[in-house]
């Protein structure tokens, strides 16, 4: 299978709940591709709270989201849930 396309959403400077809304909008826009595993969405944020709210919301929507610390904030990687991958 081809490597999924990565869509990066840089919302550094934003704080929750804007972060969440922007992340949700991006997930909504790419819902089909995400579900199909054709793309991943990477959110770059410097709001610590977003590392909790975004993965929680994404989980309810059926996606897997993992957050990791990067030099200038956090990198939240949203992708199709593992069990849904072929």
């Amino acid at each position, binding site marked *: 299978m081809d490597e999924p396309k990565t869509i990066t959403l840089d919302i550094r400077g934003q704080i929750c709940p804007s972060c969440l809304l922007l992340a949700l909008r991006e997930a909504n826009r790419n819902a089909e591709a995400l579900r199909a595993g054709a793309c991943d969405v990477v959110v770059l944020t410097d709001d610590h709270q977003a590392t909790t709210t975004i993965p929680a*919301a994404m989980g309810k929507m059926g996606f897997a989201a993992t957050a990791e610390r990067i030099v200038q904030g956090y990198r939240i990687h949203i992708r199709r849930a593992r069990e849904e991958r072929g």
Partner: protein
Amino acid sequence: MSSQAAQDHQDALRYIRAKVDQLLTLMGTLPLRPEELDDATLLEIDPIGIVADAFAQVIAHLNDTNRALATARDEIRAILDAMGAGLLVLDQGGVIEDLNRQACNWFFGGVDANEVRARPLRDVCTCCQLTAALPPQGTAEREFTLDARHFHAVLTGIGGQAGQPEKTVVLVTDITRRKAIEAELRLYAETFNHTAEGILISDHENRVVQVNEAFCRITGYSRTELIGRTPRTFKSGLHNKAFYEAMWCSIRERGHWQGEIFDRVRNGNIIPLLQTISVVRDPGGRITHYISVITDITALKETQTRLDFLAHHDVLTELPNRLLLNDRLEQAIARAQREHSSFAVLFVDLDRFKTINDSLGHHVGDRILMEVAKRLRGLLRRADTVGRVGGDEFVILAERIASPEAAEHLADKVVDALRRPFHHADRVLHIGCSIGITVYPDDGVDAITLLKNADTAMYRVKETGRDGHFRFNHELSAAVDEKLTLENALRQAVDAGRLVLHYQPIVDLAAGRIVAAEALLRWPVGNGFVPPDKFIPIAEESKLIIPIGAQVAVMALAQLAKLRALGLPLEYVSINASGLQIFTPGFAAGLIAELARQGLPGHCLQVELTENVLMRDMHACGAVFEELRRHGVRIAIDDFGTGYSSLAYLSRLPIDALKLDRSFVRDIPGDPNDCAIARAVVGLADSLGLEAIAEGIETAAQETALLNFGCRKVQGFLYSRPLTPEMFTARLQAECATGT
């Protein structure tokens, strides 16, 4: 914008913020704060649209999840129904929440699960062993039996507070087969441990992995000593390489071997075993084990040896029997032929043994025989053989004798040895023996002839006074042959009824007439007769005397009946009886029956016996005499004074007459000794109230003397020779006619 419109705008924005906050809270995040999101941005990014879209995705995801869960539930249901175990889920109150198909079948008679679901287990399941285990403390296990099946249940409490589970999961497996296998294994184990045969199981390298108790008992090793060893431990060294090669060849090619083997046991002894070795193979055909079954056949071997001994030996004396003796005799002949040597056969017959056996009983007789065997063994060299070939008959095989005299010397020693008294329970018994001797090759070159001729020679000793030995010679053989010829002829004469009776009158001197007659047996041959002293002993020996005696009684009584029918006054007819006849059961009854058949009273018959017959068994004689006496039959003692006299019997037995032997009559009145004896016998008879009858009167002087002694009844040539029936009848008729 009017203030009202502005107010409405603000209200709308508040409404939007409130709804967005509500949606965000549902999404799990914080409410919007005006300082973080101004109204313009709020309207620009359309949070309600975003969250609504996000919700659509949440719902879609939930739907996906529910479908997956439903599928998973169906999968689990199928798995639970398909599995061999029974499964029950009970709630806190013991109500069935769920169960699988196997549980329905086992515990609820195969009903649909819905019929028992939501019902208390106690109400629908009769298996108290299962319900009694509820609720479990943690995890509980139970085994129970239902409808002849064995079950194992694991009850697990899940959820809830400690000690009070919310639910109980009951997993039941059918262990019927396992139980059956366990029982079978126990049985095999019992069999293995208690079977009388020793069993050893070794692995593919022939290392012992298991032995049973019997194996340990037979070999003396303990189980722990044997485990890990190989069966070479028991190698006795008595079998060669070829034996073991053949054994392993059989095991490899046929899968088993059976045979007798000698093994060395723990104490160093070597014992005979009957052994079976079988191989056990896995499904791939590879040997996994060897099973060896052993039976200790020591006792069997001993029995075989003993039986072999008994087949060739006399049980009582443990001397070789006739079978083994013949074998030794054949070997001796073969050896003597090779070496041109000679050997002797001594046929030893005990004298008077029968008397001891009959009078003192078999147990005494047996002790005597054992002592005889011991004495005989003591006289012989190692190479010689003594065997017992009959009741009181022994045969000695003396090999490599230097001369016939050496055999006679040995016979002397045997006679001396058996002449010595035998002691038994305070009694001193004398037996003695008669020995016939044959020497190879002079007296026979085969076993049968040597034995037969020795037997002949032994009989010669018996005839000539016993207690000695005699060497066979061919004249003896000729005499035996003649005797045999005579016996055959006599048998034919008896069968053909050719024997006849002659009658010698018995005269009453006082009355001056014939009062009775003695019937005397005659065997006519050609123009003459075979002398009675020649054929009577043969008749005795061959037991022909029994049918002859019966014929005599029939003829004599028929003759008397005939005479009486003619009106001739004969008081009785006297017949002679031998010991053999007297001691034959039915002798008296036969005579009595014959008297009845002829219509004659008992006193018409007199039976004459010699003293020797009486002495043989006075008790038995007494019983016969009493029976005859009850029927009036007369009894006379023949040849009185010549035999072994015991005057005691005269008073004790029912006797009518004494017949004075002719040997005492011959020389009277000239010989004073004979006169004294004759007078004494007549006097004895008179004083006991018996009749005296004198035999062999040939002269008038003898008659006068006897009359003087008081003897009234006489017989002899002076009055008449024995007469044919016709002549006797004529004589009586003539006497009657003259009135004398």
